[in-house]
């Protein structure tokens, strides 16, 4: 049901009955390591290419999600997913092996919440009883496609971010035990003229702020209604900008815990990740691994996850275009709240 301008209100309260998260070695060395289902010790995961490694992450994460949901794979009616690679190859190949009806979506790093919102909408509208949302990213595939060869010696500026190696998937059901999805705000593109692909936090911050403020207007909620509001991958620079943008507009974000998945997944001081984490998997593994755990054990009651995406391509930035950005917000509550 539409509420306000761009928010879906899920009357039936779809339930996240199971999640799966798989990460690489750097994420395994970070502060949230204990919250993931599987940590790989090597970046290549014994695969012949980086792309195959990324695919393996998603296959394993979806297996964990289905297993943790306590259902059979055949019961999942639709799989909604996307990734950063051209033509969504990681998801298409994973969907091939899953053998499930598949809806491929592209929202760059906002794909985690875009796919979750769509899965919730499918379940809420009665189009599915069980729907799965999933996304993945790999540091080396992202470097290879968007930047330079992984072993190329180029100096990264302090505003650059480190793509998370990992995958996250969530099974959404019409009923069951687990955190519930109450509403989702689909963002619109915001582009304030940043064109530096090594400064994506600054490019995406206005999109996150726009979606969050629209979410409040559409739902009549205020920051204090949430125990935590997390953005996807704004990292140090983008987070600082977002905090100041909210302050400028008089939004009392100090009433809640306002953080960013890109700051939570790594130990920014100790790990060499420049401004922090990024990538589709950044918000996916932090939400489906760490935040779900805290929702289940009662530490958190209601959270808003705002995944941010920079919708650029290597071609567009080489042609000097600015970076169109988007953010999608999903509100998740404890099941018994």
């Amino acid at each position, binding site marked *: 049901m539409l509420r306000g301008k761009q928010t879906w209100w899920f009357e039936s309260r779809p339930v996240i009955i199971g999640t799966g998260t798989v990460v690489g070695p750097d994420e395994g060395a970070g502060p949230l390591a204990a919250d993931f289902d599987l940590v790989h010790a090597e970046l290549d995961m014994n695969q*012949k*290419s*980086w*792309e195959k490694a990324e695919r393996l992450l998603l296959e394993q994460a979806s297996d964990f999600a289905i297993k943790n949901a306590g259902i059979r794979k055949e019961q999942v009616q639709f799989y909604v997913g996307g990734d950063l690679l051209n033509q969504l190859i990681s998801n298409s190949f994973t969907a091939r092996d899953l053998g499930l009806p598949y809806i491929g979506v592209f929202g760059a790093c906002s794909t985690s919440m875009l796919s979750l919102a769509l899965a919730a909408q499918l379940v809420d509208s009665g189009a599915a009883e069980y729907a799965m949302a999933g996304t993945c990213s790999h540091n080396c595939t992202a470097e*290879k496609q968007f930047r*330079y*060869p*992984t*072993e*190329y*010696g*180029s*100096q*990264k*500026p*302090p*505003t650059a971010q480190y793509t998370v190696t990992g995958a996250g998937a969530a099974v959404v059901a019409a009923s069951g035990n687990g955190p519930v999805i109450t509403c989702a705000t689909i963002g619109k593109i*915001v*582009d*304030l*003229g*940043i064109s530096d692909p090594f*400064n994506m936090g*600054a490019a995406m*911050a*206005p999109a996150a*702020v*726009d979606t969050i*403020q*629209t979410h*409040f*207007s*559409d*739902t*009549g*909620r*205020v920051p*204090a*209604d949430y125990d935590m509001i997390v953005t996807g991958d704004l990292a*140090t*620079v983008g987070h*600082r*900008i977002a905090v*100041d*943008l909210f302050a400028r*507009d*008089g*939004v009392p974000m100090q009433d809640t815990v306002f953080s960013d998945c890109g700051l939570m997944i790594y130990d920014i001081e100790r790990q*060499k990740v420049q*401004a922090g984490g990024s990538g589709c998997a950044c918000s996916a593994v932090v939400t489906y691994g760490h935040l779900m755990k805290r929702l289940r054990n009662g530490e958190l009651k209601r959270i808003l996850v705002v995944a941010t995406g920079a919708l650029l391509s290597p071609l567009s930035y080489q042609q000097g275009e600015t970076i169109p950005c988007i953010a999608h917000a999903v509100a998740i509550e404890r099941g018994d709240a």
Partner: protein
Amino acid sequence: MATKTAGRGKFKPMSMSSKEYKTFAKQREPSRSVLANCVRAFVSGGLICVLGQAIQNGYMSWMKLSSTQAANPTVATLIFISVLLTCFGVYDKIAQWAGAGSAVPVTGFANSMCSAALEHRAEGLVLGVGGNMFKLAGSVIVYGTVAAFVIGLIHVIFGIRGH
């Protein structure tokens, strides 16, 4: 949960001009120290050159080569070391600290070719390694040749000779 109050959630929509935002964002970005980067580039680039000189002197004394004769094997040795460090995944770590210091010498050129070849091995020897090896190094060769052509013209027209 907080109680309902009038005008809840009604915040001013985000609005800022692109020009205004660029300044706003710029003020919140960490600054990059040009001086520190120059010092690092000087030290690391200098060390690579010292290493090169040591290798050249080694060839001259052990293999009794002239300095001109020793130049080629010296470059080959530096390239070999660079490729080895690239394959072990070390060169990019050095480069993050060294910046231009490790990019400008011949070792940087070798790294750009080796890293591209490694990266695209999965796409096969012809379309992958062969087709992508010069992805980064290609522009160095193109503009190096163009620069040489211009210098050549200057040499022919003005008769300026190097020694």
